[in-house]
């Protein structure tokens, strides 16, 4: 675990903002106010520089040749893996598999674990807060195997109902797939306790950490989850790279997701022997540059300190919640006691898409729509929401601009 001092003063937001070239952009003739961080975050110069350095000084294919560049690229790729290992406080670097993103990581578990160990009549527990990426793969598996999906309901605040969660377990329960933090509402689920409960019933747990990894300290050994998935591009890294963490003993039991080069020890036309983990799950040439850039993004974030980031973002969320909830005719959707810096809201009488278009005209980028979480929208009887999601490079002044933008929308639609 990264040893950090908890100190919101440690966030010098002016200095941090100057690390991100894109934050200097003008949109619609106004300074960009980027509040769509839950969809994708921006990249600091240090990560951009790392990409340029790799492509100009280090690039080759990895795990292949004996020449200088191949050895260098291989070394840097594996260094990135150990950076992820330390970021997650995983026991072993072999437990870190590079994927294209969270979605691929979840699909890898569905194919590699689910198809072998979940059968007809077995039950998979999901929560009502899930992103489509943690619903659809399990639905596909359930259809293929004749398994059943059970859904943990939530309160009007967007908190999972823990007694009902516990009541879902029975002898047929074979898997729990759960978001650590909800992308649509920001709810932080009590995952440590939920993992412990599932384990009491011998049920392995996958956590979708796409919205948690960029915003808080993570410790796999403390959480004790069996699988953890997240994406690089939501934490200052590039797109096309993500991580599946899995406990070694489970990864070793799992079937590979794709066949190809690098995931084999030997191939004949009669039989192929698979490689050991993590190579078994990294068929073909991986996104080498993106993995190394993710390592640089982790260095950057840990340089600021994940606990500092969490504390500062919480301060932003509290400020935004107070200011936005004070506006008449605005409803905040998702009011859990523990939330990440996500503010989903609706303005009475105005469709979120119109809100997004009008805010965009003032340079304010928010996300509008169902956030790939249609069951969450159905639960709250809305077709869509407007969602502002904050990062450690956002400021209270930007939240003031959001509030002014909401007033402008209301005036226009009055």
């Amino acid at each position, binding site marked *: 675990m990264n040893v950090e001092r908890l100190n919101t003063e440690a966030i010098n937001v002016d200095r941090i903002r100057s690390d991100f070239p894109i934050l200097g952009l003008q949109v619609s003739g106004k300074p960009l106010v980027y509040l769509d961080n839950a969809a994708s975050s921006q990249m600091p110069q240090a990560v951009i520089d790392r990409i340029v350095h790799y492509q100009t000084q280090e690039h080759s294919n990895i795990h292949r040749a004996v020449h200088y560049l191949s050895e260098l690229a291989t070394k840097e790729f594996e260094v990135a893996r150990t950076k992820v290992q330390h970021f997650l406080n995983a026991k072993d670097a072999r437990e870190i598999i590079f994927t294209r993103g969270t979605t691929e990581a979840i699909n890898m578990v569905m194919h590699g674990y689910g198809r072998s160990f979940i059968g007809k009549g077995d039950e998979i527990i999901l929560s009502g807060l899930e992103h489509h990426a943690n619903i659809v793969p399990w639905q596909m598996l359930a259809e293929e195997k004749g398994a059943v999906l059970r859904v943990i309901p939530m309160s009007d605040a967007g908190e999972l109902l823990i007694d009902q969660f516990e009541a879902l377990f029975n002898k047929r329960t074979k898997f729990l797939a759960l978001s650590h933090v909800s992308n649509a509402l920001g709810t932080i689920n009590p995952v440590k306790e939920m993992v412990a409960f599932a384990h009491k019933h011998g049920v392995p747990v996958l956590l979708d950490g796409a919205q948690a990894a960029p915003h808080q300290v993570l410790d796999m050994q403390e959480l004790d989850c069996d699988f953890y998935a997240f994406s690089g591009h939501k934490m200052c890294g590039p797109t096309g790279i993500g991580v599946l963490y899995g406990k070694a003993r489970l990864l070793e039991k799992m079937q590979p997701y794709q066949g190809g080069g690098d995931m084999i020890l030997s191939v004949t036309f009669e039989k192929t022997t698979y490689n050991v983990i993590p190579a078994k799950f990294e068929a073909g040439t991986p996104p080498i540059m993106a993995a190394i850039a993710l390592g640089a993004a982790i260095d950057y974030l840990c340089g600021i300190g994940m606990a500092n980031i969490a504390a500062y973002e919480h301060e932003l969320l509290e400020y935004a919640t107070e200011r936005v909830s004070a506006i008449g005719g605005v409803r905040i959707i998702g009011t859990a006691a523990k939330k990440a810096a996500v503010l989903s809201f609706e303005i009475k009488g105005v*469709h979120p898409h119109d809100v997004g278009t009008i805010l965009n005209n003032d340079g304010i980028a928010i996300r509008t729509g169902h956030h790939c979480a249609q069951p969450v929208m159905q639960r709250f009887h809305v077709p869509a929401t407007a969602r502002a999601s904050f990062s450690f490079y956002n400021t209270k002044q930007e939240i003031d601009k959001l509030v002014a933008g909401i007033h402008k929308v209301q005036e226009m639609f009055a």
Partner: protein
Amino acid sequence: MSDMRQLYQEVILDHNRKPRNFGSILGANRHAEGHNPLCGDHIKLSMNVLENKIEAIAFEGDGCAICKASASMMTGAVKGKAVEEAEVLVEEFRSMATGTLDPDSHVNHLGKLKVFAGVKDLPSRVKCAILPWHTLHAALHSEFLVSTEGEADPIPGTAIGGQ
């Protein structure tokens, strides 16, 4: 677009607040439903077409202001028109919204519908404006369900977003 009022003109806001021909036609002989999964716009259209003429038309559903105003003004524009005339409007509206027809320099029949010309600068909103027209086209061809996605996507490459 420098001023949002170019898109959100009073006429659009007014049709959004008070949509015309809102509801459904009893005993209609043409129906279609249009859906834009991107923002949840959903339009149900019912019509009576007699002797090749749109005698009655109504819509219901939920959507953003652009979609609702477009549906409302569409019903007004095609009521009483021959099917072929309505199809010409569908084509012209679609071309205007996607930027291939400049209503000020090309001959057209759009009239008041020109207020939607501004959506061409907002690719994510083009589908909102087109959805009712797309649904009308489907109703005239007795296709019951349409979507702005997949094969029917008016602007390929802008399908449903991620997180």
